[in-house]
């Protein structure tokens, strides 16, 4: 009797131990798979995506370059791609941090502090909706993410349809050049979300054969590729300065875009942030290239 009781107790103790371990394991598992409640995004495009899928209230910090939506202005600013403020990030006790690139310094540091990260890379246009859906999975907001991704896909399709019957201009898409001259031109190559948007907005990239996101080109290449339209992305400028910069192109009168006055200087920030407002970017480009289809 006594021996039986003893054996029972031991068995009971074992069971208790196993149960405890199981609980711990389960809890641990639950802790890592539960939807993050405190999110920091160091990537402006992803910040916009998070707000778009309704994760705004969970945001506790953004990068220094975030300005959209307006709600981010109240959040702490934690630096940028090159100089994220790791100390302040840690102090805010996030359970998810959106970082550039899985192999970045920041990702490694956060891994050491056992803080989960969501790596982001700019890439093709399909990355925008891809990232939104992945965020939905991660945050348990699949429904909202799917709705948002579908809205973007529909929006882009609408632009594509709108310009479908228009002539497709061979377009030189310029990311930057030296102010006051046509030197040091950076143009879009045949990859990247801007290249993809241009294609949707009814333009054919003159450098689509070069499989790089951006390339430096010479004046000779502008003359050789003979673009029928030139789109330049600029920072904010006064109208006077825009006129001056546009006027510089008269140095290359043989270029069809110059001859036909199809030179567009765009400065809207939606063009440089591959987030949910990418549809606006596509509309903006389509409005510039095909103004008659403007709604």
């Amino acid at each position, binding site marked *: 009797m006594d021996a039986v009781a003893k054996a029972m107790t031991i068995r009971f103790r074992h069971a208790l131990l196993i149960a405890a371990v199981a609980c711990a394991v389960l809890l641990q598992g639950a802790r890592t798979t539960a939807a993050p409640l405190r999110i920091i995004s160091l990537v402006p495009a992803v910040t916009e995506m998070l707000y778009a899928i309704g994760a705004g209230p969970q945001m506790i910090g953004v990068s220094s370059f975030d300005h959209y939506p307006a709600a981010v202005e109240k959040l702490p600013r934690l630096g940028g791609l090159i100089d994220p403020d790791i100390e302040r990030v840690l102090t805010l006790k996030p359970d998810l941090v959106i970082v550039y690139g899985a192999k970045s310094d920041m990702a490694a540091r956060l891994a050491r502090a056992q803080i989960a990260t969501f790596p982001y890379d700019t890439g093709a246009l399909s990355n925008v909706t891809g990232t939104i859906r992945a965020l939905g999975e991660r945050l348990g907001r699949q429904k909202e993410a799917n709705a948002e991704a579908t809205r973007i896909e529909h929006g882009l399709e609408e632009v594509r349809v709108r310009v479908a019957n228009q002539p497709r201009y061979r377009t030189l898409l310029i990311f930057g050049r030296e102010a*006051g*001259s*046509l*030197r040091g031109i*950076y143009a879009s190559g045949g990859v990247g979300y801007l290249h993809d948007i241009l294609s949707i907005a009814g333009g054919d990239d003159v450098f689509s054969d070069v499989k790089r996101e951006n390339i430096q080109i*010479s004046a*000779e290449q502008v*003359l050789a590729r003979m673009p029928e339209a030139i789109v330049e992305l600029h*920072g904010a400028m006064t109208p006077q300065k825009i006129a001056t910069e546009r006027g510089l192109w008269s140095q290359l009168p*043989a270029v069809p875009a110059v001859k036909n006055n199809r030179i567009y200087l765009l400065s809207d920030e939606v063009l440089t942030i591959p987030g949910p407002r990418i549809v606006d970017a596509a509309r903006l480009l389509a409005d510039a290239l095909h103004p008659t289809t403007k709604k």
Partner: protein
Amino acid sequence: MTHPLKRSVPIVVGLFALMVLAIVLSPLVGSTHINLMRVFDRSIPFESNVDAQIFFIARLPRALAGALVGGTLAAAGVVFQGLLRNPLATPYTLGVSAGASLGAMIAITFGATLPFAGAAPASLAGAMLAVTVVYLLATARHSGLSTTVLLLAGVTLNSFFSALILFVQYLANFQDLFRAMRWLMGNLDVTSYAPLAGAMPFVAISFVAFVWLARPLNLLSLGADAAGARGINVRSVQRTAFFSASLATGAAVSVGGPIGFVGIIVPHLVRLMVGADHRLVLPASIFLGAGFLVVCDVLARTVLSPMELPVGIITAVIGGPFFLWMLLRKR
């Protein structure tokens, strides 16, 4: 027996011929094919003559810019090496290029908000600022122009300006940062003759000074005291050499960015060919420097076509190993 000077004259003439050949032939080569008959066909209006535009807008100004910048940097290198009596001196040793780069960085980063446009005038202004500061430092506590103090002031200013450049780049956004970095790698795609015309007066003034400097620099190579004993006004020679070479460097950098190695390998190559007499070394360096950079730029615009390879990378890739070889050979 012929005078040693006279024996080397054919070499200088040969280098001149090579330079002319490089300038004439380089516009015929490029990343695209052009029809020479069409280029010079006056019956086609220039506005619609693509071949002519590629030739006269994209290629010829580049060849001329290469010649102007290459010749100027090489000559400035000779003068700085003579002035500082240091074979390792370059046109950039005394901080001119760092000042020019700082000016360009500010123009590129804050370009949209500045009243003037373009990196060229800003870099020229930066170069002038650096020259003035170095000169004031070098003469502050000495009546003469001590080359040691000059060198120290130049090196110090170089690192100080480099720090300021980093600070400006720190404030820059991505796009500007990218462009700023590329400016530092050198680019001769001037796309018009205006930058050349802007730099020309400064280069011309400097070259006139270089003509006058050739003989005094020969005597200066014996040492300041020895030169003084032979009736040379050492201080005025040093001052002229410093300002003219700095002015030339600033003008060259404003056109093509801080293209490296031309100002050091060309003078040394030339000395191997014609000896140390500045009356030969200066013109020969101008011709070889001009021809060398024109050829480097042909590589820059064709190797990775349709992409541009920064010309500074080519001069460095050729210049670095060459310089090391020369250093080891001299021992």
